[in-house]
């Protein structure tokens, strides 16, 4: 397997459960036991009420493209061979939004409002990166 040269997330005390979930193909978000808010990205305190009583729950894993851009000028040489690729904001049904890539589709065919679903790509034995593909898209191997 070729070396993965792009930035690799380094799980920390606040985020480790998210990455452990991703390894098991689960998209985990946080749910506040005090005020009921859902949140992503994860952190130790609820951004709504500052409670530290947060639960990890599995998102439905579906979403909708809020906006997207096709990146031609990559941020670093590690991303050059992927360009052009799609960076998108995905709205999850729980009310959270994620920055991700829309994969397994020609970037020219991505649209705002497109229904997508999560797909996990193993980039290292520890890290699987959640990305999204069109719901109607062909079934992929999860490699991207």
């Amino acid at each position, binding site marked *: 397997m070729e070396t993965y040269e792009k930035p690799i*997330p380094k799980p920390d005390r606040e985020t480790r459960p998210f990455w452990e979930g991703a390894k098991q193909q689960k998209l985990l978000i946080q749910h506040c036991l005090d005020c009921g808010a859902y949140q992503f*990205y994860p952190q130790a305190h609820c951004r709504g009420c500052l409670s530290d009583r947060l639960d990890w729950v599995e998102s439905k894993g579906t979403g909708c493209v*809020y906006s*997207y*851009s096709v*990146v031609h000028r990559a*941020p*670093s040489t590690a991303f050059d061979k992927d360009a052009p690729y799609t960076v998108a904001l995905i709205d999850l049904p729980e009310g959270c939004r994620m920055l991700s890539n829309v994969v397994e589709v020609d970037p020219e065919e991505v649209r705002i409002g497109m229904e997508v679903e999560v797909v996990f790509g193993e980039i290292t034995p520890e890290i699987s990166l959640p990305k999204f593909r069109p719901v109607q898209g062909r079934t992929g191997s999860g490699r991207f």
Partner: protein
Amino acid sequence: MGKSWSGEIAIVGIGESEIGTVPDKNPMQLHTQAARAALEDCGLDKGDVDGVLTGGIANPLELMHSVLVSEYLGIQPRFTTSMHLGGATQIQMVISAANAIQAGMAEVVLIVSADSIRSFVGYEMLLGMFSGAGVTEMFSRIGHPQFEVPYGPTLISTYALAAARHMHEYGTTVEQLAQVAVTIRKHAAMHPDAQKRKEVTIDEVLSSKMISRPLTKDMCSIISDGGAALIVTSAERARDLKKKPVLLLGGGARTMRERLSLVDDLIRTAAVDSGRQAYEMSGLGPKDMDFAEFYDCFSITPIIFLEDFGFCEKGEGGKFVEGGERIEIGGEIPIVTHGGCHAHCHPGVPSGIFHITEAVKQLRGEVEERRQVKGARVGLINGLGGHFSSHTTLIVGTE
């Protein structure tokens, strides 16, 4: 509620360093050139300065930055700090200077901001940490290291996401985006110091290299070396100085969320609230403005700001800029009269200081005749930092 400083604080001196490509000056030298020019402009001596604010240098290794700048300049300020609000920093520094002067914590404040992100003089140690894509890579690292950076976003793609959403919701076109660049380049072509002085057409903007769709190269900031400085003091003290003071009439600021996944709405920004505060403080409104130095890091932002500052209805910014007549010098509300981040000088975060020096020059009547906004008495300047998070507004005038 505190006492308003509207009309009681003034910008009395401005100065700019060498700008464009300056391969033989490090950021500290650029700061000094600008500071020295600003002091000469108003006739004050560095010994009169008791406040020093700096902000925006890209080098994260420069801790205690305002202290180091003060030391280099041989100034021992009683009021000093370095600020980090991206492109919103420069106006926040002016607001903070006004607050300090009003409170008696400083009398003469030097605001100076400069950087070397084109030549990267003085960045040898930091550059070793990156792969060679330079400033694009450096700025892409400001995203969340676990939940954004691994997906390969750039600062440019952030603004592309806003542009795409605006196009989706309001039917804004790529030609309208290109028009913003065309008009700003037209203004830059009249500015003797602008880095890019060649006018462009809509077709040329659209056929320039695609960076992050829908934004092409000509819809993005240029990359420059350089910086500028301001001297701020009380309107009372200003009376004895060399130049006609430019009064601070209103200021406002609002910061929302910085991580892209948390931005509620990319096209209805906190500039609305930042602008409302400045309008209220000054007792003025959009119709009173003779020009608007919008922070133009990408061609989408002036379209959004025309809406958020009340020059047109939400969603109509694209139509407003069409043809360019309403936003060019001589039009209804001339924007970015110096060429801005698109074409004048964009040394990264410090670029916002040129929007302020330009407003001062316009109000003093110091620019070339064809670039001069006729009868300019009051103008709006805004700043925008990071991923649409930090917004600052300043309204300045001569009376």
